[in-house]
């Protein structure tokens, strides 16, 4: 069974005829050739690497079919930076050593993206917020520090500038 879909990823519209069973993560990686989104479990939503933003909400793209995303706006790790200027979240992960092998990084960034909207979370709240994405390298310390820094950076910005960093 096939169906036509049109999914806008990072502002670019991708049209394709896809099997109903095609997972959104595979549409992103195979059809759109955006391999920054990773897959690390058995397509069962347990590792969090494939987390993306769909219409403003963080979603594990292995738990969604491509056909369900028809007509949706999707943001992936490739869409965070504005040209050569990194998103404050990317900056913070870099400065706080929030990544090592980089495999969980797309999941961490896109999950944190949603939580950045909380202006003053406790460390505990950040740790709770990120628990759907597993990391085997960092021990999470740098990641938690990075999210704190990103929130502080964004909070210090004028509202209009801040809004630019939240395209979805």
């Amino acid at each position, binding site marked *: 069974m096939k169906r036509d879909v049109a999914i806008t990823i990072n502002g670019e519209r991708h049209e394709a005829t896809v099997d109903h069973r095609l997972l959104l993560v595979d549409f992103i990686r195979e059809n759109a050739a955006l*391999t920054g989104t990773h897959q*690390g479990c058995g397509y*069962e939503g347990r590792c969090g690497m494939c987390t993306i933003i769909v219409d403003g909400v963080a979603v594990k793209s292995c738990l969604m079919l491509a056909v369900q995303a028809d007509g949706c706006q999707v943001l992936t790790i490739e869409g965070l930076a504005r040209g050569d200027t990194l998103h404050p979240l990317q900056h913070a992960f870099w400065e706080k050593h929030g990544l090592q*092998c*980089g495999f969980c990084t797309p999941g961490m960034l896109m999950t944190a993206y949603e939580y950045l909207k909380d202006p003053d979370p406790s460390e505990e709240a950040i740790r709770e917020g990120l628990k759907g*994405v*597993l990391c*085997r*390298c960092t021990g*999470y310390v740098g990641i938690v520090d990075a999210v704190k820094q990103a929130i502080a950076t964004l909070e210090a910005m004028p509202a209009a500038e801040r809004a630019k960093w939240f395209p979805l």
Partner: protein
Amino acid sequence: MVSAVNGGGEMNGGKWVGRPLKRKEDRRLLVGEGQYVADLKLPRMVYAGFVRSPHAHAKILGIDATRALAVPGVVAVMTGRDFAEYGPILSDLSVPKLPGETKRPIFSALPVDEVGYVGDLVAVVIAKDKYAVEDGVDAVDVEYEPLPAVIEIADALKPDAPLVYPEWGDNVVYHQHLVAGDADAAFANADHVIEERFTCPRNGASPMETRAAIASYGAAEGLTVWLTTQRSHIKRHLLAEYFKLPDNQIRVIAPMDVGGGFGVKAPLYREDIAVCAMAMKLRRPVKWVENRQENLLNIGQERDQIHEMAIAFTQDGRITGLRDRMYANCGDARVPIYIGIAMPWLGMMYLTNAYDIPNLDVDLTCVVSHKAGLTPSRAFGSFTGRFAIDRMVDLAAKQLGMDIVEIRRRNAISKFPHVTAAGVYCDSGDFDGAITKACEAIDYPGFRKLQSDARAEGRYLGVGFSLGLEFSGLSSQILVPMERQPGFGVATVRFDANGNVQLAHGDQPQGQGHDTVLSQVVADELGITPDDVRVISGDTQSAPFAAGTLASRMASYTVSAAYYAAQGLRKKMASIAAHLLGVPDEPEAFAFAGGEAVWTRDPTKRLTVARIAETALLAPTELPPGMEGGLENTSHFEADAPGMQSTNVHAVIVEAFPDTGRYKILRYVAVDDSGLALNPLIVRGQVQGGIALGISNACFEQFHYTADGQQTTASLAEYLMASSADLPHIETHEHNVPTPHNPLGSKGKGEGPTGMVPGALGNALEDALGPFDVRITELPMTYERIWRLVDARRRAG
């Protein structure tokens, strides 16, 4: 880029080494431009998937691929019979050569008539897309006749146990009896003896990226394999032997990005071989990306040890003897390079670890079973033994009424260099100083007051320590007899014509930040910046031959090779500069800084590094007479000692909740020795990540096998890796003692921190639960297990 974002060029005396530079690797990873094996595609590529055994032990009566071949997109199905032409996998090249008695299983990439664990390979399906592969795998019909299975160590050692390899006559794959000093006398003369049994089930370091391979074959080019591996050259050599091809007809490429290794990606696996064979047979590129279920059924499983340990000690707290009957369950042992035995062997060699115990009697028995083969994981073979020894020290203190810190000071290795009873050379370190620093960091005296106040309020706080002697690489003296592999670090420094540097080395990373650290080292030696250095590794066609990434070797061995390679090149550059400037040829008269070679006798005479490189590469006629063109140098570094070690102390404070068995880590303080922190940011990340893995292993993780060998933890819903919410903040402190055996004094930090955790945490938990008099001897320390210990004590009154 590095210099711009980090600033402070004058920091650390103007040197790059020692500065917490942000990593060069990160930018591509942060914008989604990493390149992992799963991201690659080749023209005409097809996908492989494996049919795997649902039985722990069974005869294969028949394999019927009819339905599978009818699935749209399926190209081929192959079974063990299709691999018969290649012969057995293990050879002298791929079996450890340890002292003691080793047996060797004979096996092929895919079994022909018998499977040996749940998840064992049965057939491979090739299809045009990965969805069709899954359909094809489901449609292969296999008829099995289940056979009796042996799963745990005790089962394997029963006199009437079914035999995993009948030709052996028993289930023992390796045995060694290590005796040093006079343990009998130590025990006979001891004031006290304690015996205890410690266990750890299977767990390990499963990285977030599973295994993946793409193989491509052409008659002229030979075999090219992109592989998630820590050791490209060793795998190429083994593949060449297996396929009877010369090494130069095989190219193994670990891409720029490998998503974590931790030892799990060090062995050669049967799937790697099968994917290569498929590509050669089909003459099309074949891609295999392991799914998580396959991953958890097959690899990342380590530990699985039992220690029946006894220590002898004097009234003043000096441990004089150690006896251990040590057992390890190696599973099917069909894992080339290690066959499950290398890990427990090294664990035995490091059993006394930080403690100077002169008399030893250790008997190691490694069994085979119908579990998956044991694979290396961070804390290589040591996790259970480290738990045991640090628990024993606390038990001795308890028996003597001695302070847990004082007993550690009395038994820790105190004079360096030192050779342990098992023969491990310890070059440098300072346990005493590190203990003091850890005690200050957690305010140990203050904590005891806090603990007693809390107890008066019905709260249960506890503190625990562990000491660690961690290897920083394994020298050739150890690695050659162990695996017949070189221990040297190797690096080639090569200039481009514009004065930039390519650095090729043999220590391919899986996220450790090697590019950044090596760039810092080379930049200092050549007077350039880390941004001027491009680092190459992982591809056998461009990286120099080396054993690969293992055992924390980078900071001590590979860094030293890069240092010497750059230093050697500097002499040539000084000669060129002298010639071009018309000054005497005295290499030591030139300083390299700020991208220039400066004649120190008259600093107005200077030349850019770029000009020197340009001359050497593009204008050899302008070189000093007789000098060869080009600007390139390779160094193979061997330390002038059998090994380098770092000395570390960790302290943990927990609060336990006896009614539920839950506990919370309130403080985790690590005092670690990296000799010289080449990049403190990266060192800290290695320590924190290693500890996180240790906590996850010690508290949560277990590959659970039922009595008939079903593994019930083959998803991340059951195999519980710690999340951010499960872990505490981890505090790190440096206490560095440079090694005298390499030029910068630096020591590796990848392997060590994990093994520090179970001892410190077990000790803290038992201390917290002191009023209940529980004894914690089994890992993982799940909440349920702790609750059961407390509950049993309460019932006993």
